[in-house]
């Protein structure tokens, strides 16, 4: 487990989490007829640890991504921080409040947007939902109208706000949800997989929007996702979570440094080469027609590269980091394998 606390956060953290854990009791579903009958009288259950004691500190104005595979516990963490559920153990403070006490003062200062889950009132047109929002969050009409117009124009959804929400597409709904969430100028924004199920254009629009708004307002944003794209587009700090624990907490750039030992060197040759000649170099390689892709240890690049370039027929070369998806997937895989060996050893 790696825990790097950025300097800014140490001063006056907006979010402080210590030892937060959440367990659920889950009843086993019976399989087969005999088991079904038995389940009438006695049901077995087991405890699922959604979150196993997590520490986290986030400072004002940070844009943090919680990255992890499905079931990692990122949404659980978000729900704990927004007060939707109560923890089994541990403490958390957001903007000085304990989230699950659900104080009105607290709820007025943050917003939560969940991808693919509707929060706008289904039967009302968005415009009505916004007005409801104004009432509920006690906003003065002038301020409300100014902010609403700003946001609506930023996302270009003015023509949509009079239609009942249920008639809109997923992308359109998502944009309206974001508008609604930001109307009351929250200091903290929680986003749960906001781009899931959206097409590329919509994703891009939302990324742009979030970047702009976050910068303008110096909002603290915590975003959960399993898309690397979101992370790269939006965040500098990544918290990798798997199976209820934080695996890594630090900047995006550092993930590459810390977790990769190789770089990827791609050579474009004049013509398809002799496979054995390439393999003779001794690096793992892939030959695709006139293109050769090699994985070379970082320390050796400086030596090997000139050799490669001197070989005849090299037209172009590029040296790149291992793609982030791969790094992160590798992290998940090794963590799971670790768990499996531990399990097997028991």
């Amino acid at each position, binding site marked *: 487990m790696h825990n790097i606390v950025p300097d800014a956060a140490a001063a006056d953290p907006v979010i402080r989490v210590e030892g937060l854990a959440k367990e659920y009791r889950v009843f086993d579903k019976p399989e*087969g007829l005999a088991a*079904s009958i038995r*389940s*009438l009288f006695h049901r077995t259950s087991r405890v699922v640890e959604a979150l196993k004691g997590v520490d986290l500190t986030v400072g004002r104005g940070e844009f943090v991504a919680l990255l992890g595979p499905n079931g990692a516990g990122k949404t659980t963490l978000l729900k704990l921080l927004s007060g939707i559920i109560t923890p089994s153990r541990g403490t958390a403070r957001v903007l000085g409040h304990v989230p699950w006490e659900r104080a009105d003062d607290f709820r007025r200062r943050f917003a939560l947007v969940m991808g693919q889950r509707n929060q706008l009132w289904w039967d009302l047109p968005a415009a009505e939902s916004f007005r409801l929002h104004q009432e509920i969050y006690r906003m003065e009409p002038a301020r409300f109208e100014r902010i609403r117009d700003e946001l609506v124009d930023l996302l270009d959804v003015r023509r949509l706000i009079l239609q009942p929400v249920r008639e809109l597409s997923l992308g359109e709904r998502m944009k309206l949800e974001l508008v609604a969430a930001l109307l009351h100028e929250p200091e903290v924004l929680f986003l749960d997989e906001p781009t899931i199920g959206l097409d590329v254009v919509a994703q891009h629009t939302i990324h742009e929007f979030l970047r702009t708004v976050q910068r303008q307002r110096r909002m603290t944003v915590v975003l959960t996702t399993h898309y690397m794209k979101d992370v790269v587009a939006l965040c500098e700090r990544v918290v990798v979570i798997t199976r209820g624990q934080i695996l890594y907490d630090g900047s995006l750039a550092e993930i590459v440094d810390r977790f990769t030992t190789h770089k990827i060197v791609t050579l474009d040759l004049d013509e398809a080469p002799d496979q054995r000649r390439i393999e003779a170099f001794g690096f793992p390689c892939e030959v695709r027609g006139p293109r050769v892709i090699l994985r070379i240890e970082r320390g050796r690049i400086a030596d090997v590269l000139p050799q490669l370039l001197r070989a005849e027929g090299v037209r172009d070369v590029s040296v790149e980091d291992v793609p982030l998806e791969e790094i992160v997937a590798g992290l998940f895989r090794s963590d799971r394998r670790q768990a499996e060996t531990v399990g097997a050893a028991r």
Partner: protein
Amino acid sequence: MSGVAGGTRGGSALRGLRTWWTMLVICIEERLVYRGDFALGTLMRFLPIVTQIFLWTAVFSATSRTDIAGYSRNDIVAYYLLTMVTRAFSSMPGLAGGIARSIRDGSVKKFLVQPVDYVSFLLAARVAHKLVYYAVAIAPFALVFFLCRGYFPPPPDAATFAAFVVSLLLSFLLGFFMEAALGMIGFWFMEVSSIVFGYMLVQYLLSGHMFPIDLLAGVPTGLAGVSLADVVRWLPFEYTAYFPAAVWLGKVRGERLLWSLVIEAGWVVVMALACRAAWWRGTRRYSAFGG
């Protein structure tokens, strides 16, 4: 629900049986998953009878009569309990609506192409459902009947009992074909639900669900010597709740009993034919539209 397999004759019978068995097992499992739901639900279905018992007791207490239209207070309680049994046979929840829906969304088409008769398939499915239901509901039913045995008159003789069983089986078929025919209206009208609602309303009043039809014997119809009860006797509705209960209690005897069985059987035939005709004409019309 998966379609019934076709195929060669001998093999298909065995396969059909196996499919049936699987359907049965799955239905039972499905019921048991919602175990809390189910156990509670079955027992709770008897609760309205509790209020009816109190209500009728109060009605009888304020009148000097010993019986109302031939029913003593205990008879009426027994009657309600028996109608629960009849309705366990004749009620077809979701049948009409399901047919109408499958017509509307086109899933009925696969029965036009496969060598499986839609109505027979539905009938088989309902039999399976009912068997499962009886298997699991028999315990609560038995419990309630045991607790209320004091309300019942001495059990009927063998002949009456046989008539009771026949009337129950006929009520199952009657209920099935009536609702199936209703569902087939979906071939001609989009909004079947209003028609179904009208049917359920009339059913509610005239099937004997609310009160023994004999109570209508004093209601005039404008025709000399003909009460509302007499008219209702010729309609199919009372056979889905009232009739078997009345047979068991001995309120319908001798020649009248035989005639009523004939009428009941007659309605089964009429409704089955209506179903068949509706299917035949409906599918012809349907395939003309594609859809």
